[in-house]
């Protein structure tokens, strides 16, 4: 991991200055919140265990670079130290504790794997795990460092400023309204229509009632000797009866009348083909 100090711009804040250029995490911490370096050290997990004295992340960093032999680290003490840390971390960032847990767990796992005889080593191999952890830490370290450098840049609203009182550019929208003559006139028609008192009138329709149809059909069937086609019951098309609407009504009523009479056992109805002429005659006892 490259541990070049964060290039503190001429305007970098006191908080943004790396407190400990040796530790990537420390750098990221520095911009985290306005905490003094001393407070930060208190927050970091500082290990005093057999084989290692210093912050956990530094241990990891060194282990990664094989500057320290993990086999010499006491896992038991590491875990104890971690638990102590969590205990007193009461009001500290849970997030930070979680990160340490990840690191400690990895260290412990790595070490236990390394301690196993070669043939009993789990799959993936400890070497692979170590490499993975190393890559991961490298990537994360790079991002933490990048974040620190990003935060230390000359930032708008902190180090550089835009104009305090810009006049502002206004685009005034002018509407050119459109409406056609037809729309105008139709709108008036609609208003008029809406505001007219509404009168509902049921118009007298030209119909032949069922009663008159029954009377007419039964009397006509009574005098007929042979089959009569349904249409023959409709009154002849002259004068009032010439109106097509009335003729339609008469035909329909005659049909219903024929059905009523058939139901009463007074007539019989025959239809030879579908949609063919309907024939009616009186039912002779």
């Amino acid at each position, binding site marked *: 991991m490259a541990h070049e100090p964060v290039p503190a711009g001429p305007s970098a804040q006191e908080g943004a200055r790396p407190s400990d250029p040796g530790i990537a995490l420390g750098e990221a911490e520095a911009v985290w919140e306005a905490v003094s370096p001393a407070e930060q050290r208190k927050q970091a997990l500082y290990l005093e265990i057999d084989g290692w004295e210093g912050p956990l992340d530094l241990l990891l960093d060194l282990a990664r670079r094989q500057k320290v032999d993990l086999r010499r680290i006491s896992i038991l003490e590491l875990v104890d130290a971690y638990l102590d840390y969590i205990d007193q971390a009461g009001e500290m960032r849970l997030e930070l504790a979680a990160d340490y847990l990840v690191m400690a767990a990895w260290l412990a796992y790595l070490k236990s794997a390394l301690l196993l005889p070669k043939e009993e080593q789990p799959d993936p191999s400890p070497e692979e795990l170590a490499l993975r952890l190393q890559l991961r830490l490298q990537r994360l370290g790079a991002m933490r460092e990048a974040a620190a450098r990003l935060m230390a840049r000359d930032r708008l609203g902190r180090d550089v*400023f*835009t*104009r*305090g*009182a810009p*006049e*502002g*550019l*206004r*685009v*005034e*929208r*002018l*509407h*050119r*309204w*459109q*409406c056609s*003559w037809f*729309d*105008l*006139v*139709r*709108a*008036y*028609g*609609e*208003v*008029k*229509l*809406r*505001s*007219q008192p509404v009168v509902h009138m049921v*118009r007298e329709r030209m119909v032949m009632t069922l009663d008159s149809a029954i009377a007419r059909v039964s009397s006509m069937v009574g005098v007929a000797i042979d089959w009569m086609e349904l249409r023959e019951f409709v009154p002849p098309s002259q004068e009032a009866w010439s*109106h*097509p*609407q009335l003729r339609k009504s008469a035909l329909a009523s005659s049909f219903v009348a024929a059905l009523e009479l058939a139901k009463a056992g007074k007539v019989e109805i025959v239809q030879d083909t579908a949609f063919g002429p309907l024939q009616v005659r009186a039912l002779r006892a």
Partner: protein
Amino acid sequence: MSQEDELLRALEATLFAAEAPMSVEQLSRHLGEADVRAALRALQDHYAPRGVNLVERGRRWHFETAPDLAHLLRREKEEVRRLSRAATEVLAIVAYHEPVSRAEIEAIRGVQTAKGTLDVLLEAGWVRVAGRREVPGRPVIYATTAEFLAHFGLQTLKELPGIDELRAAGLLDPVDDAMIEDALGPENPPVAEEGDRPATEPGPNDDRLST
């Protein structure tokens, strides 16, 4: 860079970032008790021919857009917009009944008319305030304008179709039996009188259904 230049830069940045005009005293205090008067003048000279000027107003200094470029701050953009249905109705009522008050428009429309609707017509230049009616409350009355006539290609308001013509054009037809019979269709031989009836526009009726 010389020290004067540095003061100039500091002044420039301070005035640029300031949210309100600043007095000489404020500037001086802000810049470590420097004597800013000469620098202010120098800065003012530098900006004089530019698009932004440094100006002193009531003993306070600030940057502002050069007066001859003020038009850049406000740009006009024209948009063609169709009159809303409500506005069209109000316009029609003003045209047929002018001069009318808002209360009268509402009475004719049968619905309340939003203030904005009349404003749109006033903005469009088609309706004007034609004084007040001399009744209690002295309501404002509205009438159409010459622009209205021009837009709709009318010489006078008398050219607007009368109620009878509207009815003849089917614009006042309620949905009626004749329509239904028409719709019932072709098996029905056309009745003699039907041919005489002017073609009814299905349009308006459709609209009525949709309102």
